[in-house]
């Protein structure tokens, strides 16, 4: 991808555009907000959090000034609690369930309070957990995304020797390479991975399993394996012109942004983004923030069918993104580079028209890693290409466990974290016959 336009706006403006949409709470805000929490019993926010963090407990600890204790409650149920504090879709999770939302449409800002406590612990390099006494067993984890990091944390706390393999040069998976930059920068998830390393977990980065190291080798070295390899590249549009300059996968586009090396991020003047999920929203809003003059979101169905969350859609509207509904791309037009996206209406009229543009971003969902599961790991997948697991997160091979996007087909970071936790419990009971329950399971 060689297309690099000079953004019409200067670096300072880009930096401003990418400042955090949910900035940290200051002390006064944290005191006020934490004391506003009612400290509900059997609170709905706990149930709504996929990792079941004891929200009232951690908020009460902020109010009492026990910030270390607060951070422990959070990380105890969710080892990537600092990341989740920034990237969780709280409107549809904890905050959506908060009784203060019911009472007066002003939920407690749980995400930002979670950040307040975890920031304290990480800034002061507080020891949150200790590794367990070595139990002589070892587990290999493929993928250092939320699922892998979570699984590793709990296993290390139980005394396992854990090694995490990731093909990328930085740990964190999509937390590091995929989150909208205005939500969170890479440093947070990388620091969080360091907390995991402090428990003695070994990180083997730049190591692709199935290429740099064989899967069999890993199986021979470990008592059990955990697959947290996420999803693959974005789906192809399967139209002609897909290889033209200026056509880019949303994930590659976002990965470039994550470097914050703004001038090297490919950007057109008019950007057409195909898709209407949360990734498409991340692509349009960030293209706009980088300085694209026109950004259009093209979707084959109607406004009410979009899979993006309502608040994400609102964000795109605020960023003056244009929406082209009931429209499917049929060809990308251009010589070497994109000059237009040819589309056809899906409203029954079948009308064909061109949208002049110099960049097309594909954001129509990620592929499943079929080939890895079938030919490398040899574990069963379902008809949608998701790894099949039982309630212990155990695959068709009893020594291989899996969790995260590769199992649920793509959800949120917090869901992957929960699955990593479940898998650690499953691995422990399978290898030792002993049952453990980590925070968040009653």
């Amino acid at each position: 991808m060689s297309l690099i336009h000079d953004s019409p706006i200067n670096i300072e403006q880009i930096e401003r555009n990418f400042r955090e949409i949910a900035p940290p709470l200051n002390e006064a805000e944290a005191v006020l907000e934490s004391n506003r929490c009612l400290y509900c019993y059997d609170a709905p926010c706990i149930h709504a959090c996929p990792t079941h963090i004891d929200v009232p407990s951690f908020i009460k600890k902020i109010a009492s000034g026990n910030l270390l204790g607060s951070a422990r409650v959070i990380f105890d149920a969710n080892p990537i609690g600092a990341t989740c504090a920034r990237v969780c879709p709280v409107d549809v999770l904890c905050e959506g369930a908060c009784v203060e939302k019911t009472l007066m449409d002003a939920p407690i800002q749980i995400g930002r309070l979670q950040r307040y406590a975890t920031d304290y612990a990480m800034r002061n390099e507080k020891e949150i957990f200790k590794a367990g006494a070595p139990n002589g067993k070892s587990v290999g984890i493929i993928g250092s995304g939320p699922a892998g990091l979570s699984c590793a944390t709990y296993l290390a706390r139980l005394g396992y020797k854990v090694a995490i393999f990731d093909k990328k040069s930085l740990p964190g998976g999509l937390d590091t390479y995929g989150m909208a930059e205005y939500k969170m920068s890479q440093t947070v998830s990388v620091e969080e991975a360091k907390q995991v390393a402090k428990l003695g977990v070994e990180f083997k980065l730049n190591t692709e399993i199935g290429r740099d190291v064989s899967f069999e080798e890993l199986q021979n070295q470990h008592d059990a394996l955990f697959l947290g390899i996420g999803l693959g590249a974005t789906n192809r549009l399967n139209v002609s012109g897909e290889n033209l300059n200026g056509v880019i996968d949303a994930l590659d586009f976002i990965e470039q942004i994550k470097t914050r090396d703004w001038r090297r991020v490919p950007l057109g003047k008019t950007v057409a983004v195909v898709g209407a999920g949360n990734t498409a929203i991340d692509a349009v809003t960030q293209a706009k923030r980088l300085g694209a003059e026109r950004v259009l979101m093209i979707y084959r169905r109607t406004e009410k069918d979009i899979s993006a969350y309502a608040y994400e859609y609102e964000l795109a509207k605020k960023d003056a993104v244009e929406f082209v509904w009931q429209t499917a791309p049929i060809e990308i037009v251009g010589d070497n580079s994109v000059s237009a996206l040819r589309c056809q209406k899906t409203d029954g009229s079948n009308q064909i028209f061109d949208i002049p543009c110099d960049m097309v971003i594909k954001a129509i969902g990620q592929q499943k890693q079929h080939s890895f599961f079938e030919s490398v790991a040899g574990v069963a997948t379902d008809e949608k290409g998701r790894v099949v697991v039982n309630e212990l997160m155990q695959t068709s091979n009893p020594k291989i466990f899996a969790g995260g996007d590769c199992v649920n087909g793509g959800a949120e970071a917090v869901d992957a974290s929960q699955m990593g936790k479940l898998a650690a419990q499953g691995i422990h009971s399978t290898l030792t016959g002993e049952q453990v329950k980590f925070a968040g399971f009653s």
Partner: protein
Amino acid sequence: MADLSVNFAGIKSPNPFWLASAPPTNMGSMVERAFDAGWGGAVWKTLGEPIVNVCSRLAALDNGATRMIGLNNIELITDRPLDVNLKEIYECKKKYPNNAVIVSLMVESKREAWHEIVKRAQDTGADGFELNFGCPHGMSERGMGAAMGQVPEYTCMVTEWVKEVSNLPVIVKLTPNVTNIIPPGRAATKGGADALSLINTINSVMGVDIDTMIPYPNVNGMTAHGGYCGTAVKPIALNMVSELARDAEINIPISGIGGINTWRDAVEFLLLGASNVQVCTAVMHYGYRIVEDMIDGLNNYLDEKGFASVNDIIGKSVNRVTDWGNLDLKYKTVARVNFDSCIRCNLCHIACEDGAHQCIDFTEIDGLRFPIVDEPECVGCNLCYLVCPAPGAISMVRLDDGSESISWRELTSKQPATMTGD
């Protein structure tokens, strides 16, 4: 992790957090759930002669949207049969040998009555007694509770009666409804008490429904004064605890009670001389679960400060409380505004202007008007600092260099003729 266990007048408990004698300790199943939640000890709801309670019983003071910063009750002692309570105390202690179970008692002012209930109650295996000389409503009209605690001679006498037959440590629970807490404290000590606990509740009328003109709590159109407790009473309790702690004649341990919600509140009581604490209202509001953060927060605090045991902080601030006459008149602070943190609400200005010494003026910085303290005029009263809503916007800065000091007492002893205000 610091050691949180305490030995209070010979009564051991895994941590200094006890439930006060009140509804949360009404019966065995409740106390057992409390121990499961982590409470170190529990003082059973006061036992005595059968009573009948009224309905309703509670009323509260709210602070804006914050509910129940003060609570008032007209509940009496237990309304359950004595033998049922004693049986449950026995079973509870057997099940929880490491937790402290204290039996609170209150009977009429007759030696035999006290002897009898003490004898019956000490067969339960309980760890100690608490004599309820503090209940300020209802029972006091029958010559019990605060009616005893308010007369030092009675306090001493009844304590002696109990000590005559008790083979367990005896804690005397004092009423705050006295002008001076020292005489009842000394009287209990003289009577042989092994420890003191305070405060019980404070006489109060919680408010009036201004539409019906019936005060709260409403008992068929009437009310009676009740006992006040909860967050709002903490400063009163802290004062009384520290008064007793620094009294040279009182050398028995003190159990601090009144307005404790968090580990921080507990630390303050411990620093001012309490050897453990008891909690009622906060548990009535949020449940037994609050003890988890009390334990966790205290632990983290002790670790942070480098104390190996909670016992190391008991009484650490007692010698920081003195009589006014001993305070240093040369110590000089003034308020200073930090313009970076100031949000320009001007509350400091109006507080000083109308409530203090008219020394906060305004200055203009980059076209914005900020408050500024006229330092030579500032008397260092703290008012502006207390009203300021922005953390760090006002600091109280020390001006004297500490080289000189003189107290009122020293001053008057030097120049008795000119100083007449003492």
